[in-house]
């Protein structure tokens, strides 16, 4: 089956610091997506980045498909960034299926 590994499991930052989250996956994926899960459980899609580098706001994702890894960089962290960041991939045969990593829990302290 698909394996998605995320690191670190948790991260504590001071407001204004940058965060670097990692995602490694065991097979080639069509879609590599990053999600934010709030402490209450709701989920929001952040970025879809199967390869290369993508930016949105303070987020930058870099995916190296051949090496089966992706990173999410959060610049100038804010307390409202606190939550869990999930990485997910789909198998190349079916983009309607997603496999998630266990997430990185980010805590940004004031």
């Amino acid at each position, binding site marked *: 089956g698909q394996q998605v590994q995320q690191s670190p499991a948790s991260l504590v930052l001071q407001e204004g610091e940058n965060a670097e989250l990692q995602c490694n996956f065991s097979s080639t994926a069509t879609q590599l997506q990053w999600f934010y*899960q709030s402490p209450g459980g709701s989920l929001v899609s952040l970025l879809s980045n199967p390869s290369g580098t993508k930016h949105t706001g303070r987020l930058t994702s870099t995916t190296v498909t051949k090496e089966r890894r992706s990173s999410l960089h959060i610049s100038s962290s804010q307390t409202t960034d606190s939550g869990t960041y999930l990485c997910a991939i789909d198998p190349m045969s079916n983009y309607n299926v997603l496999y998630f990593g266990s997430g990185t829990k980010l805590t940004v302290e004031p």
Partner: protein
Amino acid sequence: AQTIHQWPVAEIKAVGSPLSLGCTIKGKSSPNLYWYWQATGGTLQQLFYSITVGQVESVVQLNLSASRPKDDQFILSTEKLLLSHSGFYLCAWRTGSNTGQLYFGEGSKLTVL
């Protein structure tokens, strides 16, 4: 604007009792629909998906079933709950494209006692 509504927000149920969780999408025709589940402290897992009315594909077997009776409705159910069904259930939709963004409902928290 498209909206997604899940119900109920939370349920406390007894082992062996039936369950029905629902999800309705408004403002989008023929969306692809998805059910996900997350045990407390666990990894999010996809349960089902549906591309069209009346057709549902299972991804993970958890003694649950899903149905899509209408274009805008996705139902998750079981006749007999297990303790292991406890957790957080999320419904999502997206356009029928592999580049379409996923939009999630607010989730339903289920506690099985």
